[in-house]
């Protein structure tokens, strides 16, 4: 991947990620003990500009080519899943492109490096009032909220006791909150992605002006740039997939390392076992293939956006489908290889074990589900119905 893909004048973020990665690896156990990213690491990521990969350039963001974003998160995830996950979530600032730039600048308050946290699922209620909404709600899984400086939450705009409708869909939008308006409830005790600080967050009767809300699933962005002409799910795909591809690669690399010396029972060392050779080849190839497709599909979607054309349904489906493949390949790789590593790999602090926990936890993120494949399948079958979840 040539560095000309970086569209900002910044240094290549992949290089910066590579510089920080060893720190994530070394301190993964500490992050797990803290159940969140250590504050000094979050600060380093911020200073390196790694929370504004996808922020619009007009807001001071890097507005990086999506493949660059993908490879940046991937680089971090090869070192540590939780650290990469937290960084990806911190980049949700991409969605500020759906606010009027003036409103977005108000939220950033001169600091484009602010990490964002929040949950998109419409678990909050927004009661319309003059020029805005009164919002209450509680959201789980707000990764990185402890070091975040800006928060968003999915809400349903209410019409009394029932959701207000826009045509035949509910008025589902995202409301942006200043960090200090948000209560954090210490709830994150998970097996995988343990170091992501994905606590619950809540707001109560908070006034949010309408200009600080947006609905990227349904509406075009306010910032007119190729990155934001991609569908919201395609825009976020490189972040999620970068985590998956990197963690999967990290797991395979670690397994290869273990296989150099590890024996099981009285038999051959793992690396000489033919079954292991076949399975490691499959794992390696499947992940490479999924990654190759993802990069290809993302490139095609980007090219369409860069040419100023509206996102194409087949291209959107290809990105989402490839995202699924990347995660499956990574999860399958670690789940297939782990049993060959034997009892020593059960230790909590073994990186292979940690990758396994992180990947299996991530699998349940909304982005990865058979529902996504159904949507892709409908497109393969020739459906041309616009699908806001693609």
């Amino acid at each position: 991947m040539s560095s000309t893909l970086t569209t900002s004048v910044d240094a290549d973020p992949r290089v910066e990620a590579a510089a920080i990665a060893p720190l994530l690896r070394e301190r993964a156990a500490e992050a797990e003990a803290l159940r969140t990213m250590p504050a000094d690491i979050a600060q380093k990521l911020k200073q390196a500009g790694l929370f504004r990969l996808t922020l619009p350039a007009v807001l001071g963001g890097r507005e990086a080519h999506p493949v660059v974003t993908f490879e940046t998160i991937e680089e971090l995830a090869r070192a540590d899943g939780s650290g990469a996950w937290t960084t990806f979530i911190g980049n949700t600032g991409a969605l500020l492109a759906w606010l009027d730039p003036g409103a977005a600048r108000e939220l950033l308050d001169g600091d484009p490096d602010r990490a964002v946290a929040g949950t998109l699922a419409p678990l909050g209620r927004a009661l319309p009032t003059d020029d805005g909404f009164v919002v209450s709600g509680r959201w789980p899984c707000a990764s990185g909220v402890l070091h975040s400086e800006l928060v968003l939450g999915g809400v349903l705009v209410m019409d009394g006791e029932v959701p207000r409708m826009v045509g035949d869909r509910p008025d589902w939008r995202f409301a942006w909150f200043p960090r200090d308006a948000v209560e954090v409830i210490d709830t994150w005790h998970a097996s995988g992605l343990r170091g992501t600080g994905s606590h619950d967050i809540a707001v109560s009767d908070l006034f949010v002006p309408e200009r600080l809300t947006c609905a990227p699933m349904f509406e075009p962005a306010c910032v007119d740039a190729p990155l934001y002409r991609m569908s919201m799910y395609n825009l976020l795909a490189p972040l999620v997939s970068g985590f998956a591809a990197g963690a999967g690669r990290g797991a395979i690399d670690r397994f290869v390392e273990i296989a150099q010396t590890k024996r099981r029972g009285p038999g051959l060392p793992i690396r000489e076992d033919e079954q292991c050779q076949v399975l490691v080849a499959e794992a390696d190839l499947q992940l490479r293939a999924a990654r190759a497709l993802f990069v290809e599909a993302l490139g095609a979607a980007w090219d369409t956006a860069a040419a100023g054309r509206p996102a194409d349904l087949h291209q959107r489906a290809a990105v989402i489908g490839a995202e699924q493949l990347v995660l499956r390949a990574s999860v399958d790789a670690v789940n297939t290889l782990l049993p060959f590593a034997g009892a020593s790999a059960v230790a909590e602090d073994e990186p292979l074990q940690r990758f396994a926990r992180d990947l299996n936890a991530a699998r349940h993120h909304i982005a990865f589900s058979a529902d996504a494949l159904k949507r892709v399948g409908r497109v393969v079958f020739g459906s041309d119905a616009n699908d806001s979840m693609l």
Partner: protein
Amino acid sequence: MTDVIDLDAVGVAAAQQIGEVAAAHAAESDEARHLAPAVVTAIENSGFNALLMPSAMGGRAVSPRAAVVAIEQIATRDASAAWCAGISMGSNHLAGIIPEHAARAVFADVNRGGAGPFNPGALALPDDDGVRVNGRWAYASNCNNAAVAACGVILTENGQPKMTENGVEMALAFLTADQFTIEPTWNTAGLTATGSHDIVGDAVIAPELLATLWADKWPDDALFRLRTFDVLGPCLAAVALGIGRAALDVVAHKAQRDAEGPAKPGPKPRLADNPWHQVEFGRAEIRLRSARAVLLEATDEAFAYAARGDEPPRPTTAVIGIACSDSLAAAKHAVETAVTLIGTDAVREGSPLLRLRRDIDAAGSHVMFSPMIVSGLSRELAGVPTAAYPFLPAP
């Protein structure tokens, strides 16, 4: 007390009772990293520890099926308790491979449990008073509650490991609880309360307390015409089957509860409204049930040979071995499917599925479930006789 296992159904009731106790004391057990005393007592009182012991010693020498069904049942409530029960029953079964008088001496109370850290942790060195074993054994599950531990050792010649064409020659040395001490090294995330610590010991034992897995067994009971891992293998595979069963039950209960309420709008419909999730559930169910069915079928087949006086054919043991490995895989698949179908709630701390997942991963790391032993067993099954440790001796 000894009647409780005459019928599967009664054995299941006893196992359910143990499961109740184990579930009620799970926090205490986890904290201690070995079973709480109440759980140990419940297992000992059930008579399960004598289930697979020679009838001449007061054991019950039943078909392994009864043990599998009981252990599986316990595992649906608490996998650590089930694992300890399986290890206990299996290591007590080894009373059959040492001479009767020695067995009576070492396994004095058939209701006590045992341990069996098979990975060789010491050399067996001839000594004036018998055989000296001085070493450390890892993963000694149930050591906290064990009257006896069957510890893997390497036989020697002139002080050096004795070699055969399949590598060093291994055996088991039987140490009583007074001959070893526990070093609390067990700190995994799953099977937390199995107390699978290291034990260390330096003892001189009588020569007849040293025996190989393939030793002739003295008891008359049909059970002792089985190969050792025809019995021990299914006892541990049963833990996996119980974990898988519990995981799919979580899904079914949620599906039934949800079905009583209204349909859920949005991108995550109820299982009752989601054909793909139904298919995933059904596949996981059939896979788990199939693995269980073939394990029991092969175990019964082996026992039928034994009951008419024969050692089971080697391919039958090969099927048992592969079925053990497949039970683990099917259970793992069941757990992962359940986690997928339940969603984010499944991976939160405190979720039963999270515990089941940690338990199945820990169980899967046992060498008996290593996918690496499948090739040898498969070669045997294809009709080409093959040594496949620990299931089959060299032909």
